[in-house]
């Protein structure tokens, strides 16, 4: 009997402590550690984003740890577990999935750790403190207008899409089509995802060329895919015949535009976005609380005509 009472009391005590522990509020912040969580470091553009975020946070006096999510929401969630356990002061976050990443940010918020999104958004406006995003739609409207101009309003083309779980993929494609679809003599003969990956884009392009050997242009949702597509076209001896358009402002495409190989890209500003995120985190830690939830950062059209104004990942200022 005494043993049973003891077990009962212990079980109830355990339950009480567990429930009480789950409801604890945000912990006091004494950390000078900032976490930089990047969707993938397998793409030079994101390496620039990471370096700029890390550099600015360190310049502001924080110790920085970098977490590579390898394009995996599961890996990303694991990083957030580590960050929450490690009591970081803030998270500079480049999400893998606009929907799937919300839960991780919510958990961080519950643990009292503010999150600042960079480049990509999460589809919620009540969990991150601020989201500094590329205005991909508007950037691709400009790209689409230039695309129409260069093709003279007619021809056949291919579109290579990025990761389907990334809102940027949809924003870029929608912006492009909001212009191009008004020109009935411009026909899209194929549209496939290559996951923002250069190698995959090359493979997809090779496959598409077998079915559609006489296209006039290809629009790629990022520069890595543009380079992959260009490589496939060059191998097929069609690089002179087919115009390639990218999006990002990556070094190899900027060089390729300068060389006349690629027609245009949309310049995003990863260094600007990363620095803004780091500075916002610093301001938050120091007490500021009123931040705009979404801050679009304009994307600029880079062509062979204005290439002298630009360098890799930014303007030549």
């Amino acid at each position: 009997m005494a043993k049973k009472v003891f077990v009962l009391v212990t079980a109830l005590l355990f339950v009480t402590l567990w429930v009480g522990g789950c409801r604890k509020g945000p912990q006091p912040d004494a950390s000078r550690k900032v976490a930089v969580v990047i969707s993938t470091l397998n793409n030079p553009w994101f390496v620039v984003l990471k370096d700029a975020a890390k550099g600015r946070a360190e310049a502001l006096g924080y110790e920085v740890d970098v977490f590579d999510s390898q394009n995996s929401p599961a890996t990303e969630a694991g990083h957030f577990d580590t960050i929450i356990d490690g009591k970081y002061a803030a998270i500079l976050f480049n999400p893998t999935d606009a929907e799937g990443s919300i839960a991780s940010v919510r958990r961080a918020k519950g643990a009292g750790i503010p999150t600042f999104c960079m480049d990509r958004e999460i589809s919620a406006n009540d969990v991150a403190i601020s989201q500094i995003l590329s205005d991909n739609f508007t950037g691709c409207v400009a790209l689409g207008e230039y695309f129409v101009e260069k093709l003279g309003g007619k021809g056949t083309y291919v579109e290579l899409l990025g990761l389907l779980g990334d809102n940027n993929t949809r924003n870029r494609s929608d912006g492009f089509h909001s212009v191009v679809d008004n020109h009935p003599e411009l026909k899209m003969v194929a549209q496939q995802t290559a996951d923002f990956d250069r190698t995959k884009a090359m493979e997809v392009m090779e496959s598409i060329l077998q079915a559609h050997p006489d296209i006039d242009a290809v629009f790629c949702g990022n520069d890595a895919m543009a380079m992959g597509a260009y490589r496939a076209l060059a191998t097929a001896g069609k690089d002179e015949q087919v115009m390639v358009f990218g999006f990002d402002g990556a070094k190899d495409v900027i060089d390729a535009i300068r060389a006349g190989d690629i027609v245009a890209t949309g310049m995003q500003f990863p260094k600007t976005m990363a620095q803004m995120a780091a500075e916002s985190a610093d301001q938050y830690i120091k007490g500021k609380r009123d931040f705009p939830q979404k801050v679009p950062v304009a994307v600029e059209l880079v062509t062979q005509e204005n290439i002298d104004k630009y360098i890799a990942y930014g303007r030549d200022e």
Partner: protein
Amino acid sequence: MKRRHLFYIVVLGALALLVGSSVEFRSLEQKRAEDRAQRFDAAQYARDFWDNRLPGVLETAQDAEELIGLFNTDMKAAIRAGRTLGHSRVHAYLLKGEGTIVSVDEGGLHVSVMAPEDCPEIVLCTGVYISGNAVRDASGLVDVSAFSDTMKFNKISFEINKIVVEEVIEPFHDTGPQVGRTIAFVGAAEVAEDATEEVPFGGRAGQAASGPAYHLLKVVPVRLALE
């Protein structure tokens, strides 16, 4: 036996209380209704914007002639007079004016609002489609942070532009615009900071097949009236 059963009942009850308080049960229909309510209707939003909210800010439109003067001579002042979405070198303006139609092409009406009357500074976009965010951003009425994702925000521009084409541009074509006539307008423009670095608005920008080509400020019309 009875006491052991009672013991198990109490423990199970405590566990059930714990589990039950951490789980919420709702009917599937209730969940579907909540999802439907959250679904964003960009066309409806644009309709409400156009009918009920935009008219109230049109009176704040700046004089086109004065604005062009600023763009051409003092871009810093012009930037201060515009609206900026986030971090950008492009700024949006509501503007109004009256001018002479100098020429017409598939892009729109080339209009002169300043002397000399035969030299246009503006193109009122009256083509088959409108792109960009001029009306949305120049109005100052749409807050990007109010939307859970930017796809909704972008769709608003798309739907507003459709209204412009269907309700401003297409009916206007029936009035038979002619070169030499006077036109009054209210519209929206997006202007980059380096727009007049090389050539001012109204300045010569080369030669077209039909005559001299001018560097023109693109204006998306919200109101058009031939006089």
